[in-house]
């Protein structure tokens, strides 16, 4: 096994930064950001929903970028990075869909709206990436599993922008947009709150990603040690798994 970086390193600092940023973000959301004139208090879910969606999307694409690293180098660590990024993004995406649904219900009266292209595109991207785990689980040989998962991740990452274009064009009319994704036309205090929330969620993603990487890595090293010390035959072989090992 090649010498591997110490994943635990920097984890404490990162966790602290996340807690602080998220606390500040929530304080700003509740006490600083002004109430939206039309939507009132429920609009504040925007500070959770949009950052979750942005971070999940970036995480999916990041998974594709890591997958390129895997195919280029053939090293399993890149596969694991890609896996953890996509896995985390799926969780964040579920959060984004739920918060989006609540927001839609509160402000438009429906749990789901088809005329918001960003939301529809997001659902499609989520549906695509949700097949990542079943695909992995269906391939027994771990090497093949990693390679095929990487091919999938790269194709799926390229799919993200194409899908946005197609869904966008399919909308006969564009819903009057209260807020754009980048927060470009937000009033100052809202904009600041949004950016800090975004930073907090991004940090949360990074921390969780690092935690899972560290956990997986530790388990792998422990297993390798056990196999070496106790002998290969006494350690039970790994069962079927969707996760890289």
């Amino acid at each position, binding site marked *: 096994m090649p010498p591997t970086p110490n994943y635990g390193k920097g984890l404490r600092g990162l966790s602290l930064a996340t807690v602080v940023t998220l606390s500040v973000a929530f304080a700003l959301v509740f006490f600083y950001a002004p109430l939206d004139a039309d939507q009132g208090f429920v609009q504040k879910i925007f500070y959770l929903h949009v950052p979750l969606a942005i971070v999940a999307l970036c995480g999916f694409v990041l998974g594709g970028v890591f997958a390129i690293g895997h195919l280029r180098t053939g090293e399993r660590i890149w596969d694991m990075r890609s896996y953890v990024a996509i896995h985390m993004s799926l969780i964040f995406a579920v959060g984004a869909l739920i918060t989006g649904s609540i927001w839609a219900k509160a402000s438009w009266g429906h749990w789901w709206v088809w005329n918001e292209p960003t939301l529809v595109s997001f659902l499609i991207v989520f549906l695509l990436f949700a097949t990542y785990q079943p695909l992995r689980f269906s391939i027994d*040989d*771990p*090497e093949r599993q990693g390679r095929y998962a990487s091919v999938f991740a790269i194709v799926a990452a390229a799919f993200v922008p194409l899908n946005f274009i197609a869904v966008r064009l399919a909308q006969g009319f564009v819903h009057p947009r209260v807020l754009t994704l980048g927060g470009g036309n937000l009033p100052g205090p809202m904009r600041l709150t949004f950016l800090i929330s975004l930073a907090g969620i991004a940090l949360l993603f990074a921390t969780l990603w690092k935690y899972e990487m560290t956990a997986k890595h530790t388990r792998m090293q422990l297993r390798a040690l056990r*196999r070496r010390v106790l002998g*290969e035959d006494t350690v039970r*072989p*790994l069962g079927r798994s969707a996760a890289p090992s």
Partner: protein
Amino acid sequence: MAEAPAIELRGLARHFGERTALRDVSVLVPAGATLAVLGRNGAGKSTLLRILATLLRPHHGEVSVLGESLPKRAFAVRGRLGLLAHEPLLYRDLSGRENLRYHARLYRLDPARVEQLLEAVRMDSRADDPVRLLSRGMVQRLAICRAVLHDPEVLLLDEPRANLDPAATDLVEPLIGRAAGRTRVLTSHDPQAALAEADIALGLRDGRPAFLSPAAEVTPEQVRELYS
């Protein structure tokens, strides 16, 4: 100066997940010689053949076939070796002739070579029947034609005489027998027969070499132990 070895393995290992299929396999096969690989089912014989055929990549150790190191230079040896695998690698719904013509196209060969081989194994009369209608022995003869179609320098033979009756065995002898003068790696369900036509014998047990010696020096005890 002695000719370069046709096949050279040093410390070869291959895993499937955590399962070790091959480990510490080191063999040297001179050009024109025959290596018999012996062992029980699942000992790693087929894995070894597939690695030599460039179908599986080795995980550790050095593998060199015809002076080209695998897997890096795999493209340079493809087309110079012929694999007769467990499965015939023929399309069941196409005829023998169509199958062989397809392979001749892949290897950019003259279709006349197909006719020549069909005649050599006496399959010319049934060559237009779909493979699925043929007996196992006939399919095996076609598979042998497929493996030697491009006149390969190295032959990798997994149980080459399975399903063949004595007459058919004599027919294919000039193609895959020692007389063909090719470097051969073969496995067989019949260790005595395999040893009789081999120069070197490699015994595999659970993916590890149990013995490696000139074929003539392998004792019946060694063989019995290998299969026990």
